[in-house]
């Protein structure tokens, strides 16, 4: 727990309760000491996950996200540099907390966009399975859109989930034998059928 005196919360975009380290200027400078850098990386990792979960952000595009208050503390006039941002995301990818999304067609925009796993696909799989259970939708076929945007998922954590993440979560369930992808006549993935957990 921190004993820092001031807790700055920049409420420009969100009311996200930033931790006090967010007001510590060295936090925005890449530390040359490797041990300190490791700690700094893990703090940024946590901060990004918390921020994205709080604001229900599934993807980060660095070209725009670099302007967010997440990476800019205007109270102390400090911001994280883009290359440091990339290093942070790289380390998140290594840990499995994020995944780079290859840019749409162009080589230049490589590694600027990333999926943030503030819940891992396994967690999402559990949550979806629980939701299916509790809403009695076993053995029914749901479209992917229905899971993310349907009336029944309105209050759910995975409301508006990124299709890529949802697909990965479903893959976990399929591997467990709890779900099955249904294909339409022309080979398109049309929906998913859930089975009860054994």
């Amino acid at each position, binding site marked *: 727990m*921190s004993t820092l005196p001031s807790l700055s919360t920049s409420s420009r975009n969100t009311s996200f309760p930033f931790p006090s380290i967010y007001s510590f200027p060295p936090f925005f400078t890449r530390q040359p000491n490797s041990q300190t850098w490791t700690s700094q990386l893990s*703090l940024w990792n946590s901060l990004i996950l918390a921020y994205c979960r709080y604001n229900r952000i599934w993807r980060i595009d660095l070209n725009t996200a670099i302007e967010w208050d997440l990476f800019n503390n205007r109270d102390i006039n400090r911001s994280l540099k883009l290359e440091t941002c990339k290093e942070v995301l790289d380390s998140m990818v290594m840990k499995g907390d994020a995944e780079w999304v290859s840019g749409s067609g162009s080589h230049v925009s490589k590694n600027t966009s990333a999926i943030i796993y503030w819940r891992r696909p396994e967690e999402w799989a559990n949550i979806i399975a629980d939701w299916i259970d509790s809403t009695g939708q076993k053995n029914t076929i749901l479209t992917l859109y229905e899971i993310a945007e349907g009336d029944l998922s309105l209050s759910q954590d995975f409301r508006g989930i990124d299709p890529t993440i949802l697909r990965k979560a479903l893959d976990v369930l399929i591997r467990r034998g709890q779900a099955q992808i249904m294909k339409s006549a022309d080979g398109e993935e049309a929906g998913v059928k859930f089975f009860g957990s054994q």
Partner: protein
Amino acid sequence: SFSNAMKVADSDGPPPPCLTCGIRPTVSVIEQAKEAIAGVNKAAHLYSAHLPIGGVENENGFACPRCTFVNHPSLLQCEMCGATLVSKNLPPTLLDNAVKDLVVNERYSPSPTPPGVRYNDDDIDYIKISFRTGGERIFLDKLKNVLQDRIWERRTRNIGTVGASQDRRSRTLTQRLPKLGIHGLEIQSVKECQRNLELMHSLNDLDSLMQKAKEMVSLAETFAMRLSNAPGVPEEARTALLESSEALSLSSPIVMREMAGSGDETFYAELARQLAEFLDNGVLVKEGGIMTLFDLYALYNRARGLSLISPKDFYRACSIFEKLRLPFRLRQFRTGVVVVQEAYYSDDAVNSMLIDWIKTTSRERGISLGVTAQDVNQRFGWSVTIALEELETAEVSGNLSRDSSVEGTRFYENLINTFRWNWKKEVFQERY
């Protein structure tokens, strides 16, 4: 065979004086001499004893009439004493003139100096007088008397005009002075002596200058002392004076390689000791106990004044501080910067002092401030280079973290390492 010899013996008047010793022989002496040398080469012996010109002939050459050195026949001047030699092969007419010239003036006792040659008094520093048949004691007594009475002073007054004309004559003759042979060498060495004397005089001037410089330094020091004690003196004047007296000199004599004659080791040891003394005289305290090697080198060389030392010697002297148990030591930062610091403080002690200070100030001034190298410079007196090195050392040990921005680099207590944040619990109230 020599006409002159016969003349002497046969002449009716008083015989001419001996040209070697200047004494006029009586007829009886000549007769005795004649008898003594009967049967031997008569002419040669007579010649040697009393004849003014020429020299004793033997197979190698002929002897100088003054010093009897046997010269080569073709020489015109004696190789030993520089006297003019008159060969007996001289045509009789010339010879006659030469002898006449010598005998003409009765007032002077003739000398073997060739006729007409007179040395300028200024050119002669000494006269060599040989006594071949005794009489030196009498001469010495007479000389003493003359020197006591200072006869020459009375005499110059009388001869006045004559002296002047003689002077003119002698000046033209000096140019004919022998420049060759041993006599020439002697004259040269005399001149060399004079030149050296002059040089010594001028160097004495330099010495006295140095003497004055030392006095000036001590004067400046007393001024500095007085000023530092006196109230109401502006601070700038005080520091300026202190610096100037520091720049002027060292308190102990400058160590030079030549002084420590017995090898390099002694030289470096002496140099190290003087450096330690120099550092001890407030230099290091002013720099906050640590200073870079180049700062010290510049300061020390300025204090030495003209006799600078090379960086190599300086470094070697500094590197034996610890060996000599002097209270200083060298320390190298990981960036390669070498500093001199007091030996009692370990690197860690110095560093933890810095870290403690940063921790307390950051608590006093608030988290978002931190310190710069300049702040450290003001607090501890270390130069900015050293301050930065110390800060980076603390950073490497994980005690500090840095904040680089357009405003420069500031150093903070390392909260990143110690900060713990359970975001799932704090933000989302989850229990894990």
